[in-house]
């Protein structure tokens, strides 16, 4: 697919005025707004990325909502509800951003529950223990932040602005997750084991959230040329690990990578080999919870059908009534 990797700017010798304006805006690091002309590939790429991100927020509610009814203190219960609620809010802003590009929420929802849309594979892993609420915050939200902070500068205005708000909330979530683990690590032997076991299960999947290695990432180059994406997968993954190592030391947990070591030359933490077969398995639908996650979303959608129909029918009747009253 080398042809699509070449940015549009250099692909054709003669380009339209609109396209030139678009290219100038990108070049100047300005924002593209919904009213602006944009290449079809740019629009499609954004709809794909934003809707996948929205779906990830929505599916991502499930592994955590799993523990709302069993949270071990009222304070933790309140924090967890607020967090899962934030995720629903993020899903809503992101769907709205995708809608500014002509996508409809119904189409995006249908694609998700039909299993045709992608979402972050990380949410196909289960949350068997309370400590997973800590690991999801610390590792999964932590990885998400590294991915997402650069997106606050994404060239598409509505996406970049949505990401500013999302990142603020995510960074709060990450601290909450860290604090859950910190409390567990300061607790009983059983609690410490619970925390370590959970970190063992989430560490590698969190590193895989940055996507395949740069030499195996088909969409990255074009996204970087269009300034939708600003750093490569491997760059961001490295940044994340550099951040985790000192935090793991504070927690007193061991990162489950025996080959992890500090490289004096690069001043970075070199990681061991990532098992990409697992990533591809989960991506291909053979993860622990893929079917369950989609089923829950579909059930919620289908069980809610009569409610949404009622709301639409009521709104219609109300507007007919007010039209009648006005005439």
């Amino acid at each position, binding site marked *: 697919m080398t042809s699509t990797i070449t940015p549009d700017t250099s692909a054709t010798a003669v380009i339209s005025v609109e396209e030139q304006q678009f290219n100038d805006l990108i070049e100047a690091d300005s924002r593209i707004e919904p009213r602006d002309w944009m290449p079809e590939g740019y629009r499609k790429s954004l709809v794909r990325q934003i809707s996948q991100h929205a779906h990830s927020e929505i599916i991502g509610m499930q592994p955590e*909502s799993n523990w709302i009814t*069993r949270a071990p203190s009222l304070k933790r219960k*309140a924090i967890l509800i607020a967090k*899962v609620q934030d995720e629903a809010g993020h899903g809503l802003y992101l769907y709205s951003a995708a809608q500014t590009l002509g996508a409809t929420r119904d189409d995006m929802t249908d694609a998700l529950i039909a299993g045709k849309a992608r979402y972050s594979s990380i949410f196909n892993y289960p949350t068997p223990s309370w400590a997973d609420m800590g690991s999801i915050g610390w590792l999964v939200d932590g990885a998400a932040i590294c991915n997402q902070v650069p997106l606050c500068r994404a060239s598409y205005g509505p996406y970049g602005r949505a990401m500013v708000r999302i990142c603020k909330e995510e960074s709060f979530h990450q601290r909450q997750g860290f604090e859950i683990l910190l409390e567990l690590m300061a607790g009983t032997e059983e609690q410490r084991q619970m925390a370590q076991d959970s970190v063992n299960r989430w560490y590698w999947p969190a590193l895989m959230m940055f996507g395949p290695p740069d030499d195996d990432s088909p969409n990255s180059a074009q996204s970087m040329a269009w300034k939708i994406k600003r750093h490569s997968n491997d760059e961001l993954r490295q940044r994340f690990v550099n951040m985790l190592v000192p935090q793991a030391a504070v927690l007193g947990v061991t990162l489950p990578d025996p080959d992890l070591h500090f490289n004096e030359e690069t001043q970075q933490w070199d990681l061991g080999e990532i098992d990409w077969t697992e990533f591809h398995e989960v991506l291909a639908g053979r993860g622990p919870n893929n079917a369950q996650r989609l089923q829950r979303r579909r059930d919620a959608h289908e069980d809610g059908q009569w409610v949404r129909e009622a709301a639409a029918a009521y709104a219609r009747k109300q507007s007919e009534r007010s039209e009648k009253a006005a005439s």
Partner: protein
Amino acid sequence: MSEHIEADAPAQTPEDIHGHVAVDVTTLDAELIEGASVATADVAEYALWLGDDALVLAQQLGAWISRAPELEEDVALGNVALDLIGHARSLLHYAGTASNRTEDDLAYWRTEPDFRSLHIVEQPNGDFAHTIARQFIVAHYLFELYSRLRASADATLAAIAAKAVKEVDYHRDHSTQWVLRLAQGTDESRRRMITAFSDLWPYVEEIFRDDPLIDRLEGIAVRPSSLLPAFDAAIAPVLAEAELDIPSGFVASGGGRTGKHSEHLAFLLAEMQVLTRAHPGASW
């Protein structure tokens, strides 16, 4: 205050415009907790009544999150659950001051007979119409209750009520809007709304039942029976607009305030308490 806080006490101050929550005057739960004095045994019992209602209802609503009919409702029901957890924490903390127990001791380490929740909040989520009917009934009751409890001679209860009333006002509005939509939406939604009200109405009577405890808490507690006229007056226009009749039929014998609970509570507590009880003495 030598009199009971009766139903004819001023219900609303001008800033309580229906459906609007003034964020700037919201006190944090932690501030209320810090400011709490030590409750007497009777006041603690009363705080348990209200705290357990809020806790059990919050627990039920929390189970909707990620399962709601639309994302906006995941957010809205989550908001209501969060508000109620806040009320529960303040009230249970205050109740605990009488016996040197924490909010979590009370939430996680009491068994069913020691809970004081009303049967209405123990009724399961059911379909969305059942959840809305339960919310509609309870939010209207709580709004009238907290409106009057703001004038309690007990400063801590008054402070908790002053915060809670603004929040339950939103809960009242949220459930009212849904009652109208469901009752007047489609044939199916109307059928479900009618069924839900008829399933839940048997538990309304218990809400307004008086108890000897209330006689001992003159000026401090709100007499439940005194709230009934205001409750009836508040729901009547909504039900009229929705073209719904108040169901007649069963009246459940209730008994939540004395520890006689529905069959549902034990399951709810088993789930809520499972992790905490597996690790006695642990902190989280």
